[in-house]
């Protein structure tokens, strides 16, 4: 074996994808010239900027955004070319936007700098030449031996060399890495001498890679005058930077990855940016407006030169050009004229829209965090918003992909029953059955019967041994309490008393709640797991004896095998293998005659919605064990393909077992899961359940959640329906797909969308992972796309789809497939576990549930909520409102700038196409910033066109805004036409008034600035009042902002025209506003034009909701499209009903 290892070593020596680290003194072998390898230092740099590069880098990044770049260009044009408006008008808003963004990013970066500094300057203890030296964390080099004490975080990735615990283990918690707060055990490298000073070794390990749970390496320890010893290193030896040492006084480890090469740093990456549909609409509208802008400028330039070609027009005697203008080349002049027109009309695409949209999104998302309905008293947390970019997308969801475990169900496992050798044992939590065993009649035998005691005990021992649960060690502070707990555990055997749950909770720690449930279940039957010490598992059996088992190997769980095993050696010297796992993965590996007895129980339990596991064991003979041991050790030492090799050994060992029994663990439905699902379906959202669970379990959950109704016809495409003796699988698949397609798609009356008619037959679709991969990866290219299409069409016509036995990647595949299907529907994924991360990242909106399975889902989600039931309000109320708000905001912004710039455009026809601005520069600048920005911002934050309560009661209202209804071309054209109409009214109304500019009773006349100011006044009032008309929810803030803006405009105008401003070169507006208001005609025309502009608006509103009573008074509509509010029945009851529903299944 050593030879083989050496060969491996030699072969791997020069590989680039591994690194060699020298620990302690130089390796004894002198034949190699020692070149100190170069590794990066332990400095963490998460900040983006430094003081020096902040300005250029930040500016560069900001101007990479198309919009900012566009405004920069406009600004530069204004600086360079002689343009009608001063560069200040567009420079100031741009400067404001850029500055605010830069300050925000600078502040965030400063925080990162601070955090980096703290991490980098942290004092750590490094052992050097036998002395303990305190060093700054950033000075740690690869190969340094670092000492870490309890509750400290590891400064870099370390290989655990020594622990203060006797058994060479240490406990860590990776809460800050992946959110799992349970303690994890890590092991020292075996055969390290106690004196680290003397240690001399090389570590060879792979190059840094981000996977937290993968690490392969090898440590070669040189002993004085002895041959070197090689030890394998795996993830269990690696302590990750960022994890915290717990329950262990101190450890020593050697640094293998430092600084930016640590797994934590490699994992630190921004999530890919998700863009909402609204943003895409905005960009489309922007393009339209850009075209309008360009064509306006083009029209004006052309007409200008046509106009100028007439003699006397270009340069009349009263208006001569400067010599420089005369000299300019004609074509260059045309070009600069074009640019000037662009600048004059550029306000049609406002800078402030981006600011307002950003602010709306940011401030709007606060309402989600503030919502007390999202607060969960259990975990004492509310909703969490990770991105505010997708608020409005919540109102657009068409497909919801939900995980089952932990999302639809609580993931709060409770041991319900078990079956041993075909006999059913149901645990009843009653005092009368003190011994904990109650045998109910199993389906096999009607008579109360028990399995033999021997089998019972074997089964319970298996439950106690086959797991990775730890007993929580009492810390020093609560030693007394912990002792009490142990006493009670001891006492349990004596009086057979059931432990009180809270104390029980404290007892065990595991990452999976199933395991705890099983271990606790065993406790109820009298077998208590006392803990693992020095690789010895202790069990307190029914006779209050402590049984000791030496833990030889743990064959870890993985999702492919779907089982785990332990190999233990009992006191008597027997080597036993216990294995537990999903039925499908156990049954083929046990003797078939045993299977039938258990299968019935398993199937029945699965139908009731329980999670079932089968337990098997086998005795290993000495030879068998030796072989397995060797295989395992060898596989663990492999540097390449370790996973595959291990898997092969596992599969080899886990054969020929005998089945003892099965367990059933109940996973309760989440609160209001059924109601939530029903509302979402009522909202026209299609719900797909994607789960890794068994079909039967998942199906019953679906019935319980009312995703499948009693009358739902189930279309099944699973391994079971595909197993048809007569045909090949693929042919059968083809046949079934065609058949279902005919049923679900073709038979539907044309023109009716499935989800909208409730009286016709509902279909539910069930597919499992294996069948799905057959559909997706069909051998024939041509069939593949056909199947995919058929599959999608069937699914789209089903009210609910259940995909079971899904691998995480398959979940993401499904989401992706639906996302890219016709019409590109908006998808939402909701889940709570690490296995949902891929689909959460894939979907348009990812929602994490703050469940029990760590924080990965929450961290990768866009929004996190404590419970599934909160999804209803998040979508139906928040999503709906956000969508309406932002859609209105966007449309309104384009509208108000169109009617702002249109008069300016029209004015060109009256001023010789000379780019004369209609409005004063102050008005041009402040229109979007001050006069009209606040009301729309307030609207877009506070508007509730329909009360939240009504939205929640009538899920069907959600359909009204489906498919981006408010931002399609129809509404856009409507708004644009309105803008054009308003612009025309403003301009020509004043134009006809000015056919006689003597508007005062003293005969004095008004000039061009009065003209512009009148138009502008009408504009500001109309635009604001239009918004007032659209506002359905007037809070005091709306009143304040709307009337305040108008008042501000008036006050500002008085003020602006009131004095001579020393810094202005032209006093254009001096007293213009006051003079304007002293004319009665102007008052009359302002009133007339405002009214005339709003008249169509009022009419439209009136005709849209004629005589409708207020929505808050409206009773919940039991409309034909609405989902029937079926009487609430307990989910338990529904679960029972599933048997009768089985008959609906189509085969």
């Amino acid at each position: 074996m050593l030879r083989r290892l050496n060969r491996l070593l030699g072969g791997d020596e020069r590989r680039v994808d591994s690194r060699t680290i020298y620990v302690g003194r130089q390796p004894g072998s002198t034949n190699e010239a020692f070149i100190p390898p170069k590794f990066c230092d332990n400095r963490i740099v998460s900040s983006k900027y430094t003081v020096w590069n902040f300005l250029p880098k930040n500016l560069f990044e900001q101007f990479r955004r198309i919009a900012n770049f566009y405004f920069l260009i406009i600004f530069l044009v204004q600086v360079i070319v002689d343009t009608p408006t001063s560069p200040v008008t567009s420079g100031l808003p741009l400067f404001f936007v850029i500055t605010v963004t830069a300050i925000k990013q600078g502040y965030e970066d400063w925080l990162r700098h601070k955090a980096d500094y703290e991490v980098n300057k942290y004092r750590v203890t490094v052992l050097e030449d036998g002395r303990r030296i305190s060093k700054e964390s950033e000075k740690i080099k690869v190969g340094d031996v670092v000492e870490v004490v309890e509750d400290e975080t590891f400064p870099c990735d370390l290989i655990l060399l020594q622990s203060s615990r006797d058994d060479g283990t240490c406990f860590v918690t990776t809460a800050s890495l992946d959110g799992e707060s349970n303690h994890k055990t890590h092991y020292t490298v075996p055969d390290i001498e106690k004196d680290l000073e003397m240690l001399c070794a090389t570590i060879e390990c792979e190059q840094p890679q981000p996977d937290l749970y993968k690490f392969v390496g090898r440590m070669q320890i040189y002993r004085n005058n002895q041959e070197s010893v090689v030890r394998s290193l795996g993830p269990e030896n690696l302590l990750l930077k960022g994890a915290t040492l717990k329950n262990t006084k101190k450890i020593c480890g050697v640094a293998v990855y430092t600084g930016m090469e640590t797994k934590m740093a490699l994992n630190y990456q921004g999530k890919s940016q998700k863009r909402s549909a609204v943003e895409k609409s905005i960009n489309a509208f922007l393009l339209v407006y850009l075209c309008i802008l360009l064509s306006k400028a083009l029209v004006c330039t052309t007409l200008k030169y046509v106009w100028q070609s007439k003699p006397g027009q270009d340069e009349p005697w009263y208006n001569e050009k400067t010599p420089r203008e005369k000299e300019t080349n004609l074509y260059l002049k045309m070009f600069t004229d074009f640019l000037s027109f662009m600048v004059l009309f550029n306000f049609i695409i406002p800078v402030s829209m981006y600011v307002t949209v950003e602010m709306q999104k940011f401030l709007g998302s606060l309402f989600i965090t503030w919502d007390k309905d999202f607060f969960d008293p259990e975990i004492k947390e509310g909703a969490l918003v990770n991105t505010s970019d997708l608020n409005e997308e919540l109102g657009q969801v068409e497909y919801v992909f939900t995980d089952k475990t932990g999302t639809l169900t609580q993931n709060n496992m409770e041991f319900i029953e078990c079956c041993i050798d075909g006999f059913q044992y149901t645990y009843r939590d009653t005092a009368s059955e003190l011994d904990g065993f109650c045998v109910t009649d199993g389906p096999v035998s009607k008579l109360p019967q028990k399995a033999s005691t021997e089998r019972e005990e074997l089964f319970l021992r298996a439950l106690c041994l086959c797991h990775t649960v730890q007993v929580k060690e009492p810390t020093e502070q609560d030693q007394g309490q912990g002792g009490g707990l142990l006493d009670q555990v001891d006492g349990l055997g004596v009086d057979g008393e059931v432990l009180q749950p809270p104390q029980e909770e404290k007892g065990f720690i595991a990452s999976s709640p199933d395991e705890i449930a099983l271990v606790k279940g065993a406790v109820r039957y009298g077998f208590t797991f006392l803990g693992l010490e020095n690789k010895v598992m202790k069990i307190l059996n029914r006779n209050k004896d402590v049984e000791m088992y030496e833990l030889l190997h743990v064959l870890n769980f993985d999702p492919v095998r779907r089982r785990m095993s332990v190999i233990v050696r009992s006191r008597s010297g027997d080597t036993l293998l216990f294995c537990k796992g999903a039925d499908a993965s156990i049954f083929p590996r046990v003797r078939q005659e045993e299977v039938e007895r258990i299968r019935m129980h398993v199937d029945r339990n699965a139908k009731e919605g329980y999670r079932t596991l089968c337990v098997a064991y086998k005795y290993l003979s000495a030879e068998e064990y030796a072989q397995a041991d060797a295989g395992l050790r060898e596989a663990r030492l492999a540097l390449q393909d370790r996973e595959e090799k291990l898997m092969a050994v596992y599969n080899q060992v886990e054969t020929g077992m005998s089945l003892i029994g099965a367990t059933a663990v109940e996973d309760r439905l989440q609160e209001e899961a059924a109601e939530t699902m029903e509302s979402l379906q009522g909202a026209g959202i299609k719900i797909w359940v994607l789960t890794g669970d068994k079909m039967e379990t998942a199906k019953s959950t679906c019935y319980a959640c009312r995703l499948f109704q009693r009358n739902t016809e189930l279309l099944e495409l699973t391994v079971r329906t595909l197993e048809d003796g007569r045909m090949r699988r693929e042919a059968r698949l083809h046949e079934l797909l065609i058949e279902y397609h005919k049923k679900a798609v073709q038979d539907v009356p044309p023109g009716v969308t499935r989800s909208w008619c409730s009286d016709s037959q509902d279909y539910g679709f069930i597919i499992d992972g294996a069948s799905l991969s057959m559909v997706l990866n069909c051998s024939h290219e041509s069939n593949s796309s056909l199947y995919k299409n058929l599959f999608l069409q069937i699914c789209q016509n089903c009210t609910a789809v259940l995909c079971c036995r899904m691998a995480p990647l398959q979940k993401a595949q499904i989401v992706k497939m639906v996302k890219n299907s016709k019409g590109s529907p908006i998808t939402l994924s909701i889940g709570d576990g690490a296995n949902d991360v891929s689909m959460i990242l894939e979907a348009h909106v990812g929602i994490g549930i703050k469940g029990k399975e760590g924080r990965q889902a929450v961290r990768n989600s866009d929004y996190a909520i404590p419970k599934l039931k909160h999804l209803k309000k998040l979508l139906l109320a928040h999503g709906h409102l956000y969508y309406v708000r932002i859609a209105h905001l966007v449309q309104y912004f384009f509208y108000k700038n169109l009617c702002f710039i249109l008069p300016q455009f029209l004015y060109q026809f009256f001023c010789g196409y000379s780019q004369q601005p209609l409005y004063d520069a102050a008005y041009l600048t402040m229109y979007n910033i001050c006069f009209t920005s606040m009301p729309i911002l307030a609207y877009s934050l506070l508007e509730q066109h329909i009360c939240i309560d009504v939205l929640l009661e009538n899920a069907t209202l959600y359909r009204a805004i489906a498919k981006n209804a408010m931002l399609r071309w129809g509404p856009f054209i409507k708004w644009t036409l309105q803008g054009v109409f308003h612009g025309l009214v403003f301009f020509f109304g004043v134009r006809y008034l000015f056919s006689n500019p003597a508007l005062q009773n003293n005969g004095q006349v008004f000039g061009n600035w009065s003209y512009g100011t009148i138009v502008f006044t009408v504009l500001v009032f109309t635009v604001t009042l239009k918004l007032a008309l659209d506002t359905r929810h007037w809070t005091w803030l709306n009143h304040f902002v709307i009337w305040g803006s108008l008042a501000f405009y008036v006050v500002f105008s008085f003020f602006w025209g009131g004095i001579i401003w020393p810094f202005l070169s032209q006093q254009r507006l001096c007293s213009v506003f006051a003079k304007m208001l002293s004319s009665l005609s102007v008052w009359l025309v302002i009133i007339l034009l405002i009214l005339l502009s709003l008249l169509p608006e009022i009419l439209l509103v009136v005709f849209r909701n004629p005589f409708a009573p207020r929505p808050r008074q409206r009773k919940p509509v039991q409309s034909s499209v609405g989902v029937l509010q079926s009487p609430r029945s307990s989910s338990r009851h529904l679960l029972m009903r599933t048997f009768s529903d089985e008959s609906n299944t189509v085969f």
Partner: protein
Amino acid sequence: MMASSYNAKDEDGNITVSGPGGGALRSKKPENTAFKQQRLPAWQPILTAGTVLPAFFGIGLFFIPIGIGLYVTSNNIKELEIDYTGSDMSSPCFNCSQSFSWNSTKPCTCTIPFHLDQPYDSNVFMYYGLSNFYQNHRRYVKSRDDSQLNGDSGSLMKPSKECEPYAYFEKKPIAPCGAIANSMFNDTLELFYNNPNGTKVKIPLTSTGIAWWTDKHVKFRNPGGSNPNFTAVFQGTAKPVNWRRPVYELDSDPENNGFINEDFIVWMRTAALPTFRKLYRIIQKKDDLLPTLPRGSYTLEVVYNYPVRSFEGRKRMILSTISWMGGKNPFLGIAYITVGSVCFFLGVILLIIHHKYGNRSNSADISS
């Protein structure tokens, strides 16, 4: 071994870890305030035919009388326009317009007779009107120096470069600089009443009160404060190229001379449209019994200085009375009557709809 990797759920290695600076989760219970819970008390108006109906009738009833009032007022305003451009051969000013040259020292005068059919009772306002004159051309509008006009002595000697090419003349700063000032209207218009007995009576024209009060007293100021010696104040400046006289000789009255000359101020307020009128003189009503301008024939005497033929412009003289709404303009009256009638009409339609469908059911569906 890495502990606890058994999990009935599938796990994959897809784990992202936030680095330093990752946001901390807030664990505070959200405050139960009306604002944060989006439950601010709110007024929720719903516009329905029922609520809008009275408004429509109201607007209709309110606008139509105003419109009629405006229309009648506008119609009662007497206005007379005389085009004296002289582009026709028959026009009395034809010769003047043909023989125009900037350098001629002898003024060309033409006389236009006209007849008033009705007496003008109240104050009569005399306007001059120009057509196809782009006072709102950008190059023109900006060609001025407001700080010079505001009496700033620095700007007087160093006009803004916006005034180019009318900033300097032979190295001397032009006061007032710029194209607007340079092209100031300089025709002199005089009115004579032809008495039936054959004598011509010159009608007194007031040249003050024609400019905005604020312009005259705030925006425009002569340099040198109250120094009455304008020659000294404007020492070293040049008159605008096209002017016959320097700015301080516009009027004999020191309160109406220099930059605060009202004719000048009126001209400096650039017109909004290429066809415009500007107030020239006011004929004050003297006697309550006699009309300001009685019926009869009149003569307009024009000193023809201002060339418009080169850009095909027209010149007009307008006599007009003024009402509370300003000069004659039927637009407002007509617009008010129209909008008022439309509102009234819509009100009627809505009333019909309201009666027909309103009481029937809530779900009456009238799509727009």
